[in-house]
């Protein structure tokens, strides 16, 4: 047992995740995620025959399996990409939330609370208003907005005595309110036809899953969650406090910077493709910590998998509850998430 492993024992007690336990839980959650993706792809505003749909899904659309061309298109070109986007967005938001909470040692730290989602929203809005014809501008500006908001929060929080979690959260609140006003200001200037789509988008909407944003979201969510998981050991030690972590050999400022950038990439890509889906980054990591303990080496990947499942199920409800009309997925996650969070708060 190495020294840091011993420290993990001290910090985390029984909650310490052995590599075997981590692998086991992640495998189980991964299997559950896959199962839920397959299951919900049988539901939609259009009813498709179940066994033929499963056959088409498992052959990845290469075999007809008795579905008509239009039905195959509905399943493979419309429904499945949307479910995969939901998974990518859920994984991104939950992993980002878990990392922020560990980094700031604040259970309420969340992309929204820190203003990072709003930064991404402003970036996306600007690209919609001024660069509507360039599809690639959207994720780029969203990431840029998230990054700028992150840096702004970070700068504001850096006082003479260093960055305290309290200062960081307070700066986040200030940046959030400022950017919210920018959003209100610009939406007021927009013409009515654009406002309609934009207000829907602000509530979180996964219907625009066509195009290359899906690939970007999936790649970003997998890569960034992996990077964050590699920093989980340092995040565990940071839970002792920054000075102690520094004494134990953690490059505090480098870790903090990397985690911030990577997490804002996650937030930027998810906001660009789906708007602001709330509560995922708050509720899912808490649920994971309550069930499996707070060792970040387990929390971050497990939160990503569970978050993916959460949004996949929430979006299925959004697609089917009032079909053929649709609800914004953000409304569903908030309706499920807020009571769940109150329950978790009272239990914890």
């Amino acid at each position, binding site marked *: 047992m190495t020294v840091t492993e011993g420290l993990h024992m001290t910090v985390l007690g029984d909650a310490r995740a052995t590599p075997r336990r981590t692998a086991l839980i992640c495998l189980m959650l991964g299997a559950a995620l896959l199962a839920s993706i397959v299951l919900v792809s049988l539901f*939609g*505003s*259009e009813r498709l025959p179940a066994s033929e749909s499963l056959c088409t899904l498992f052959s990845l659309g290469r075999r007809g399996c008795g579905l008509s061309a*239009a*039905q195959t*298109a*509905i399943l493979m*070109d*419309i*429904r499945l990409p*949307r479910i995969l986007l939901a998974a990518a967005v859920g994984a991104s938001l939950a992993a980002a939330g878990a990392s922020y909470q560990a980094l700031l040692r604040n259970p309420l730290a969340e992309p929204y609370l820190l203003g990072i989602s709003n930064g991404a929203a402003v970036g996306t809005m600007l690209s919609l208003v001024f660069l*509507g014809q360039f599809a690639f501008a959207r994720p780029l500006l969203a990431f840029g907005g998230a990054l700028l908001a992150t840096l702004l929060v970070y700068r504001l929080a850096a006082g003479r005595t260093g960055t305290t979690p309290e200062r960081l959260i307070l700066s986040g609140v200030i940046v959030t309110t400022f950017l919210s006003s920018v959003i209100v200001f610009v939406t*007021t200037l927009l*013409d*009515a*036809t*654009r*406002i*309609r*789509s934009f207000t*829907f*988008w602000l509530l979180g*909407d996964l*219907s*625009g899953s*066509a*195009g290359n944003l899906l690939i970007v979201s999936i790649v970003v969510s997998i890569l960034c969650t992996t990077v964050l998981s590699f920093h989980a050991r340092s995040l565990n030690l940071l839970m002792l406090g920054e000075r102690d972590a520094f004494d134990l050999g953690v490059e505090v400022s480098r870790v903090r910077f990397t985690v911030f950038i990577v997490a804002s990439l996650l937030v930027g890509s998810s906001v660009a493709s789906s708007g602001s889906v709330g509560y995922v980054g708050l509720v899912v990591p808490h649920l994971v910590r309550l069930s499996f303990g707070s060792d970040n080496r387990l929390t971050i990947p497990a939160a990503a998998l569970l978050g993916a499942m959460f949004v996949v199920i929430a979006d299925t409800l959004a*697609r089917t509850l009032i*079909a*053929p*009309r*649709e609800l914004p997925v953000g409304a569903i996650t908030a309706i499920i998430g807020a009571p769940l969070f109150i329950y978790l708060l009272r239990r914890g």
Partner: protein
Amino acid sequence: MQLWNAREKAFGRMSGCKSPADSPFRQKRGSSGLLRFQPQKILVVLLLLSLGCALGCSNLRDPPASVPGQRAFTDEAGRLVHVPPRIERLVSLAPNLTETVYAIGAGQRLVGNTTYCDYPEEAKHVAKVGDTLQPSVERILALRPQLILISTASQLEAFTQQLNDQNISVYVTDPRDLEGVYRSILNLGQLLNQEKEAMALTATLRLRTEAVERAVANRQPVKLFYQLSAEPLYTAGRDAFVTDIIRRAGGKSVTAEVPGAWPKYSAESALASQAEAIILPTGGSMGEANAAVAGPLRLSPAFTNGKIYKINDDHLTRPGPRAVEGLEALARALHPEAFNK
């Protein structure tokens, strides 16, 4: 924040209150609170005042059943409206009503309209009181109108009460289909003493509509999808004005039975409907924002067969006289052979 809201509400009510009986009471109580600089007390006093004012002012809101020298109308929302014998100054808060006012020859009496009112050309140079979503009450009051026209098409019903409180006559029109447009035109004709012009206009519009309906009468209706916006995918539902236009133009909207006027629609249902044509309302106020078919619909037979029709959105979505132009354009697009004689 809440405190601030409550105060603003209290102030709002106070400014609306014109009863002289209230004012000494207000000054006395208000000033004693201010002298002692106790914010809680001021708040309580303001709340009490607002309550008293709300009770006291409520009498002012109900218009008397008849006013001497004024004409009484029941508007299309069922409200009683009193207007002077001849209206010289009116404000229109909807582009379709602005177009109607000009079409029946009362354009010179229009002293204010919205930023969306862009037709005819003269309408652009009339004083703007804001857009149809947030008109400015102050600007409207400053124009001293005798009548304000509101259309349910621009969802300003909530605004009606606010203007009513200022003792300005508000007439609400509620055109839901082409028949409703004719009715609104005739009603505005009576209101503005332009009956003859209004009747002539509706007669012409009816003739043109009937000509279109005759031309497409024996043809198979074309199943079509109306794409209001691509991302997110919005369409026209049961309550949309354009659904009636589509039916008359020899089309069959696949979303004609969906509840609501402008529902957000499932992409897979849109594709499953196997629409033979896709209508893109574009080129008017919408600009080129809706000029491309939504990604999922590019897999539809309508797209592969090139049956994509761009129709000026102002003609399709504004329930005014130009709606007949939209009807004609749509019918020509759906049934070209019916008009090539």
